[in-house]
């Protein structure tokens, strides 16, 4: 089937198999490989992107379900001139990553969280990121980064 999806503000279109998952459309068709795949069970959140502005796990959404809609990946966050998004900047400044595998998904989940709740408490940040696993940081600096981004943008 043919799908047309606006990705990071640009209209994209391709003929795909009906069973194509959104994450494969992004990675394999569009070559946007920042969005990672970390599991087979919709658990890890490494594949998190925004669908019409809300965080979803792109490994568990069909490209067909995103047809006609808007998707944002971490590649679409920074400004045209390369200025980082406040959440990216906060991860950078607070050492919110080590190996970086979880980071694209973590950042997108944080962007969605702050959109829904611009001034979260620490507890709300932890609950809001429960769908994203990190094997390295112990979460502490990720939570710090999200709180710092909230401070910066509120």
């Amino acid at each position, binding site marked *: 089937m043919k799908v047309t999806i606006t990705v990071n503000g640009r209209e994209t279109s391709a003929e795909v198999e*009906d069973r194509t998952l959104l994450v494969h459309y992004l990675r394999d068709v569009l070559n946007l490989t920042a969005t990672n795949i970390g599991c087979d069970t919709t658990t890890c959140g490494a594949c998190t992107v925004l669908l019409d502005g809300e965080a979803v796990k792109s490994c568990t959404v069909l490209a067909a379900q995103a047809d006609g809609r808007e998707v944002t990946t971490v590649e679409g966050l920074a400004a045209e001139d390369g200025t980082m998004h406040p959440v990216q900047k906060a991860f950078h400044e607070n050492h919110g990553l080590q190996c970086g595998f979880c980071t694209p998904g973590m950042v997108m989940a944080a962007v969605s969280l702050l959109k829904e709740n611009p001034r979260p408490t620490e507890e709300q940040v932890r609950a809001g990121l429960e*769908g994203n696993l990190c094997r390295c940081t112990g979460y502490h600096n990720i939570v710090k980064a999200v709180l710092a981004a909230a401070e910066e943008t509120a």
Partner: protein
Amino acid sequence: MIPATFTYRRAESVDEAIELAGQYGEDAKFLAGGHSLLPLMKLRLAQPEVLVDIGRLRDLSYIRDQGDHVAIGALTRHHDLATSELLAEQLPLLHHAAGTIGDPQVRHRGTIGGSLAHADPAGDLPAVVLALEATLVARGPSGSREIPATEFFRGLFESALEPGELLTEIRVPKPAARGWSFQKFTKRAIDWAIVGVAVQGDRIGLVNMGEKPVRATAVEQALASGASIRDAAEHAADGLSPASDVHASAEYRAQLARVLVRRGLEEARARA
């Protein structure tokens, strides 16, 4: 992993959804949020030949105050339930339980209709609609019918829906007894309940205490005949055979049910 091949059809209206389901018969499955079905398909535990996508049926996504009850469209997402002020006020049990499902990403996709139609004994919302004595409305080729929640869950992943029948609305009576509690016992944040208990007044729904979502009838009867909460809760696992799996043994689940029912009833009473 990716699902086995299938044909994707998108329904633009309720009528079209029912027509497409009728056309493909047993080979077809409805796709709502896809957060139970797609994980099963990726693991090849489900291999439908046709998916009829009902995810765009926005006219089945609503929460309406109808006086004596609240009407909820089947395509209403967990996120919408968990952020609805109407539910917070009128049905705090459902409002709260929806917010404990999975994680924010799951709640942005999963729907109440999908949760109920899937009839997973580990699901949270089946126990909640049992405790709330909701009525489910289903539509098929020959019209609509109403099914009480207590008759809806038939067995493991088996509901009273006929093949091709679409769940359209959930009608939840505004409870006379206001006290409520939702007890969800998990090992880690994102986990499903090992055992869960939904309490509204003296009605109790159980999560993961057998092959289908059930009411704790033995406890309800004990309470009705005047037993104390402590004594009634001892009957929480009577007549039930919960599964033993990697998370817990059947004995452990039975013990959890007794403890969580007691806590749930106490909390509900304190809130009444």
